[in-house]
């Protein structure tokens, strides 16, 4: 295999999110924040959320990581902002299913936004943890049960 396969993972939209991440800052008036570590590389991501009446009013993240973790965190903030907590939890679960190679309904894919293209991660199993870190932190932040 040549490096061509890398193009399936490092798509322009992924590189764009990684190089110019959305909502990358701390949130001084956050109602909750959760920090998680990728134990294999030492990368860390902290996700901040501000909820109001069961709705994610604001969401952001800080931390360092590889292209995949940074892009995925950025995409996550886009996807979860303005969702109600139950829908946000379901969206996180859909993302976990996607990275494991499951086919999602078109409605679920649409809810993931740019993150839907990370389905190619199933071809790179060693990198799934990089992509899911921010989503696990977000799910924990909204009180979702961690499986």
């Amino acid at each position: 295999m040549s490096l061509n396969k890398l193009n399936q993972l490092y798509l322009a939209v992924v590189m764009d999110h990684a190089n110019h991440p959305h909502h990358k800052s701390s949130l001084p008036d956050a109602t909750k924040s959760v920090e998680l570590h990728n134990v294999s590389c030492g990368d860390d991501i902290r996700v901040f959320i501000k909820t109001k009446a069961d709705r994610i009013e604001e969401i952001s993240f800080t931390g360092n990581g590889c292209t995949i973790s940074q892009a995925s965190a950025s995409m996550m903030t886009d996807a979860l902002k303005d969702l109600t907590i139950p829908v946000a939890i379901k969206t996180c679960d859909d993302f976990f299913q996607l990275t494991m190679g499951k086919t999602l309904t078109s409605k679920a894919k649409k809810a993931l936004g740019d993150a839907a293209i990370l389905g190619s991660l199933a071809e790179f199993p060693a990198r799934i943890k990089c992509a899911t870190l921010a989503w696990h932190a977000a799910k924990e932040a909204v009180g979702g049960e961690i499986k």
Partner: protein
Amino acid sequence: MDKKFENVIKDFPILSQKINDEPLLYLDNAATSQTPNPVLNEMVSFYQSENANVHRGVYTLANEATTAYENVREQVAEFIHAPNAKSIVYTRSTTESLNLVASSFGDLVVHESDEILITIMEHHSNLIPWQQLAKRKHAKLKYVELADDQTLDIADFKRKLTERTKIVAVTQMSNVLGVTNPIKEITRLAHQQHAYVVVDAAQSVAHQSIDVQDLDVDFLAFSGHKMLGPTGIGVLFGKAELLDEMNPVQFGGEMIEAVSRTQAKWQSAPWKFEAGTQNIGGVIGLGAAITYISKLKMTWIEATEHKLLTYLLPQLVQIKGLTIYGPQTVAEHGSIVAFNLANLHPHDVATGLDMLGVEVRAGHHCAQPLMTTLGVESTVRASLSFYNSLADMDRFVYDVKMVKEFFNRES
């Protein structure tokens, strides 16, 4: 390519496979080494013809298994030039060996306000056990820092070694920086202060001859799986008189001399530390690995790996944007090269190399305090073995450049 190398390669069928449609280039030997056929065959043969539990049965097969198990102890002693087999304890891993020293011996000699001196380049397995011991005993844990050339700062070691130092724990070869530390000098200085020296030889054991008597170390730990043997078998060497003083940390079958309702009396060392049925098959594999290394000769292994590194390091240094951690010169470098490529994350680099069939490690290498000192979260690491070739080095350098170009094009 010499004849010996060609024959050696045939012993490692795993290396002739393809990964992602490319020939496998295995460069993660510091994490685990590959196991040659003669070692595997010896283990199969043991299970097929000699397997029984050791030190228990009076029947013939049990006696044969016991003899094989104890013969390897002699072999290990000879391999590291220990005075006798009684100073060789079988464990599960380097980690378990170091934990045994820290929890048993550490408890005996370290008290409140004492000092434990370790180095900033330690693997977590030679760091956390001491950190925990220091907490338990309200002792002080001190770190020897790096010199400017990222070797161990011996002047700093001398400064921090005091009469309060009870234990010095140090790696013989860093799993990140590739440097070999001057164990003999460290031991001499530590002993002047009546401190005991514990050496992590996990990385060095397969790459250089070890003479525990010449080094005069008090304890030395290593694993089978980093020296062509199977996983799940480790060794702790300890000076006999120190092992005698130590209490076992696991209790149960095999480690006792006699048990009553109210008390138990231990066997002598090393058997008092080997509670329960041990990894007998692993011991047999360890013995076969030592035999294999002895046949190759450690001098040949050292020379072969030195040749690879001499060829590789200057080429890597030439790559623009590539930072090598540890000494920049071959003279002070073992067969481990940790590096980063400019603004690229090690995981991205490792995924790129993986697509080209090149297997390297990316991460913190279980050395987070060292990563912090180096000012990075993680690095890429290529670690060589005698079964790599000069052509492999050329390919590796080429592939690193390809990966760099790929990501630079994208960003």
